[in-house]
């Protein structure tokens, strides 16, 4: 296969993206939902790397760095919120039980 051909990498990225999306929709554990979001973000990052390889430009790698930084920041804030909810007296990580909001 031509190493400059990004189709295989895009296929893997798409599969990762769908896995992440299904994970967010199916899993009910808050930690697993956060991890699924991270998988979706990594899929986008992989797609940028593949696209950057196609155009032989550094832009894709710049976006990759930005996405990694964002994913780290989001995970930090998300875990902090989970910890705070635990401290406030919510003993479960299940997204379905003990909801205070009507939605």
């Amino acid at each position, binding site marked *: 296969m031509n190493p400059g051909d990004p189709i295989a990498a895009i296929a893997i*990225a798409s599969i990762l993206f769908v896995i992440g999306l299904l994970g967010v929709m199916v899993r009910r554990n808050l930690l697993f939902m956060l991890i699924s979001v991270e998988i979706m973000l990594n899929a986008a990052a992989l797609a*940028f790397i593949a*696209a950057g390889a196609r155009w032989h430009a550094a*832009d*894709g790698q710049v976006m990759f760095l930005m996405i990694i930084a964002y994913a780290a920041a989001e995970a930090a*804030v998300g875990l902090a919120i989970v910890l705070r*909810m635990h401290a406030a007296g919510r003993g479960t990580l299940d997204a379905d039980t003990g*909801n205070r*909001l*009507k939605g």
Partner: protein
Amino acid sequence: MMSFSFLPNAVLVLCVGALVQMLGVAIGRNVARDAVIGLLVLVASLVAVSMPTVLYMAGSVALFAPDVWASYSAVLIILSAIAIHIMSWRNAVVSDATVGSEYYLLLTLATLGGVSMTGAVHDVSFFLGLETLSLPLLGLIAFRNGRIDAGEAAMKYIVLSGVASAMLLFGFALTYLETGSLRFIAPNTGDMPEPLLATMGTVLVLSGMFFKLSAVPFHLWLADVLEGTSIPVAALVAVLSKIALFAAMVRYFASVNLYMSGPATNEVIAVAILSMVGGNLLALVQTDLRRMLAGSSIAHIGYLLVAFLSPGPLSFASSAFYLAAYSVSTLGIFALMAGIMPQGTDIRDWHGMFRRRPMAAAAMSIMLLSLAGIPPAVGFFAKFYIAAAGMAGGRLGLLLILVMSSVIGLYYYLRVIRIMLMPAPVERPEREVTSPWFGNGALIAVLACVTLLFGVFPGTLVDLGRNLIVMPSPPPGSSGQP
């Protein structure tokens, strides 16, 4: 060429201001001092927007475009931030001495994100602005100490906003794969041999934006977030982030001919119809004032999309006018809630308000009439202007739905006014009414006067809007097509 001068003035001022606030927190905690610094930073950035900007480009890549549309939306965003700042003061959540300073810091950071989004013409600058808006917003939503529902609201927002960001980024990646350009503009699919990837990219970007704008069918988080968080932050979510996203969306689609039927245009039309009808139906059944405002906010996004879908000289002008009218009225209602009855968010708590607080009830009625689009208030002219744009663009079907869903809207806006006119039922104890502090009272008065004045004399804002026709356009010299 100086390396730091590629930022617009307001972004620069807000960056420095945020650093000063962080320094303040590091030196010592004093909520009053930090609140004053925060207000000064916002006012300074307002001054900075109005100064002429010459942007240097780093290399050949333009990150920001200092055009009229960016300045207009930035002014709107900063004014909303100032209003939210004023209504936060003396809020029980914020005046807690152990955490109050961070609240104002996060507010400045969220404003910084919104302002940088309005001028972004590159995927990187848009993405950074978007996340600089979203991450502080998460902190603000979860701000109420020891409240589980605030944490739940923040959790809902973080998961859904993460999904939306991933969609946006995947869309950007597909567009980049097809065009080799990271310009923040929808690719022109007409002249491509295989437009499939670029089209998918555009649709994904659009879906991500609708998620963040909470348009139907991506709206499920908004009502919960508004209910779970404190009132000033609810105003921030409902007003500031929507102005920023809508401004960015208009810029992204400046290149697309929205008359041509394509996947992107069809998606916008479907979302506009669903938002107008769905938002109003959602608001219709709510008993909580904040959840009702969430529904109303979704419906107003739908009305804005009608203006967005009617390209022509009136399109930008009418959406600019509508954004201003929506922000003023919605901020007014939230300021009243924060000032009069911070705990009384149930609509039934407002029984007999005309007897207990005639001035507040009158101001509330003006805001509600404006949102409903009834003549003396600015909302009527705003809706009329959108209808004119729609007529000029030939969007008759959409206008029909706009009118019909506005009629549904009349019911729940007027229901609140009716409840305020009625005496309280005896079996339900009256909730205590507080007096807003001086600044919040002045804010409410100013917002009510603006709502009425621009409703009666809309000429000034219309003239302002006419200047927006020529833009927004990305400057030449952005990284070009290969």
